[in-house]
């Protein structure tokens, strides 16, 4: 009986949706089904965005030995409301020479693109908006749409800073797209499917009390770290926030945006971060599955959001720790470290498949990965000594 009740709580949203679909005329049911799948995503993730902004501001404050926002509401938790009202009532300024249509479309497109990614992320057991056979492929192609939006914003503003920011953003996003996809290839190899639901199902078993998450394998942990670094760069978050470096190019591609359009960009960035964190959870952290076998009575969607919050806190922690990279460091890191590591990781994942199970493959493959980490890391952390610059024409 308690087993049954736990299942009911776990499936409460699914059952609710079925009940609603049964109570309406059949011709309407595809439309209503779509709406019922999409509306929760449109409600929950912006709410999470609001919570994240206040967590981020408070967390960064504490990291810097400050208190952070504490005036609006209890412990400052109504701060996002105040921010929202502020950005809604602010004047919307469009530069005179800007391409007005593109300038308007860019923030809308970035939000749409980041929302579309959530369609294939399983939030709980049987809770996914679209179970596509090529879900991962879909996710990455939608992620590439964000780059278009960013460049639209940078180009249409007709400002040198926004164009510089957009160019940096494009260079960065394309460079990091590669390790992002390659680091998730190992999961596709192990699960044998591109469908996110199948990938979670492949990780849902338990050995004793421990789960079969991919992060508990040598290639899984390496893939997870590479994926998170690349996702951080894709989301333009610190330390990879040069496209919007406040101190150099004063907010980059969204310098000419104000008021609600700026808020939309902000929302889009955070949603993009949630989407890639959600994908990391799906690929490496077992999606909605419980971390220990005796905790499966806790509803699956709660596990998903707990993991998501943990990853967000990790992002905030990293943001509070690291300074911004230089452009050449960023590119060197992508091409000289991330890419070869991701490729080696694919080889390691293949070797894992063909080696007999046991401690030996664990040790051997971990050593291979650690050695290549040290090797490539040495390569990029060596200080390049440039010759003294000579100016031929200046005296």
């Amino acid at each position, binding site marked *: 009986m308690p087993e049954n009740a736990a299942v009911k709580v776990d499936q409460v949203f699914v059952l609710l949706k079925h009940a609603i679909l049964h109570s309406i005329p059949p011709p309407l049911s595809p439309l209503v089904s779509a709406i019922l799948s999409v509306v929760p995503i449109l409600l929950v993730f912006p709410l999470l965005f609001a919570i994240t902004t206040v967590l981020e501001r408070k967390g960064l404050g504490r*990291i810097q030995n400050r208190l952070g926002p504490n005036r609006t509401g209890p412990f400052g938790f109504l701060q996002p409301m105040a921010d929202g009202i502020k950005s809604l009532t602010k004047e919307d300024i469009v530069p005179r020479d800007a391409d007005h249509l593109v300038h308007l479309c860019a923030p809308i497109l970035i939000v749409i693109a980041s929302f579309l990614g959530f369609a294939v992320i399983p939030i709980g057991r049987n809770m996914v908006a679209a179970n596509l056979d090529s879900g991962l492929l879909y996710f990455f192609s939608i992620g590439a749409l964000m780059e278009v939006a960013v460049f639209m914003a940078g180009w249409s503003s007709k400002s040198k800073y926004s164009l510089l920011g957009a160019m940096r953003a494009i260079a960065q996003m394309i460079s990091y797209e590669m390790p992002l996809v390659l680091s998730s290839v190992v999961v596709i190899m192990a699960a044998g499917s591109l469908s996110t639901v199948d990938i979670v199902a492949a990780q849902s078993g338990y050995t004793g009390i421990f789960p079969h998450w991919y992060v508990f394998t040598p290639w899984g942990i390496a893939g997870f770290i590479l994926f998170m670094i690349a996702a951080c760069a894709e989301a333009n978050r610190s330390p990879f926030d040069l496209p919007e470096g406040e101190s150099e190019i004063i907010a980059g591609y969204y310098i000419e945006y104000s008021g609600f359009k700026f808020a939309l960009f902000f929302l889009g960035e955070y949603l993009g971060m949630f989407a890639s964190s959600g994908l990391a959870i799906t690929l490496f952290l077992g999606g909605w599955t419980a971390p220990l076998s005796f905790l499966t009575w806790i509803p699956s969607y709660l596990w998903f959001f707990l993991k998501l919050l943990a990853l967000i806190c990790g992002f905030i*922690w990293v943001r509070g720790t690291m300074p911004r990279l230089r452009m050449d460091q960023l590119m060197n890191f992508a091409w000289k470290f991330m890419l070869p590591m991701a490729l080696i990781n694919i080889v390691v994942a293949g070797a894992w498949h063909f080696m007999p199970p046991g401690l030996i493959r664990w040790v051997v493959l971990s050593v291979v990965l650690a050695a290549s980490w040290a090797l490539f890391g040495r390569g990029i952390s060596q200080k390049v000594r440039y010759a003294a610059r000579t100016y031929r024409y200046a005296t």
Partner: protein
Amino acid sequence: MLGSGILKGLSETARNFIGSYFEKDRLTTVQFPEERLPVMENARVFPFLVYDGPDPEAGLRCVSCQICEKECPPKCITIEKSKDKKPDAVGKPQFYPAVFNIDISVCMSCQICVEVCPFEAIKMDTAFELSTTDRYGGLLMKKQQLYRSNEYYNEIHPTEAHAVDAAFAEARAAAELKTKQAAEARAAKPIAEVQRTTEN
């Protein structure tokens, strides 16, 4: 190895994060409207006019010499001289300002008016919460709004004010001595002689 520095940094920030909840002295910020740091003695915001004694009109040190008006770089001071005279801080009859306006929306807090004033009449205030809903009238300080007592000046800039008070006491004593000597001399000489000397 790559990443060791990052881990060191992460542990440092984690220490800050957790420490800020337990060690109150880590937090360097002050919750402003409720808690305040003491205002520094050398702080300066906008000028005010000093007066001695209880009545600002009678005890105003300003003699309307208009040096500050001329020296003010952004020209935020407006002075109109009075027609009649009143005794100043030392006791000499002097003009006084009929109008003394400072537009604090123009003032740049440079303190040049204070440096040039020979009568120690204009000093810098430390009050900084001056926001107003009327940005034209509300930021134009009239003479009456600029009056601050010498006690207030002593309170906000004690070192400086003590020096000023000592100098004034000396000047007043000297002036008194002079009048006393003059009176003695007058008493010693016959009246006719005095009249003759004045005629010469």
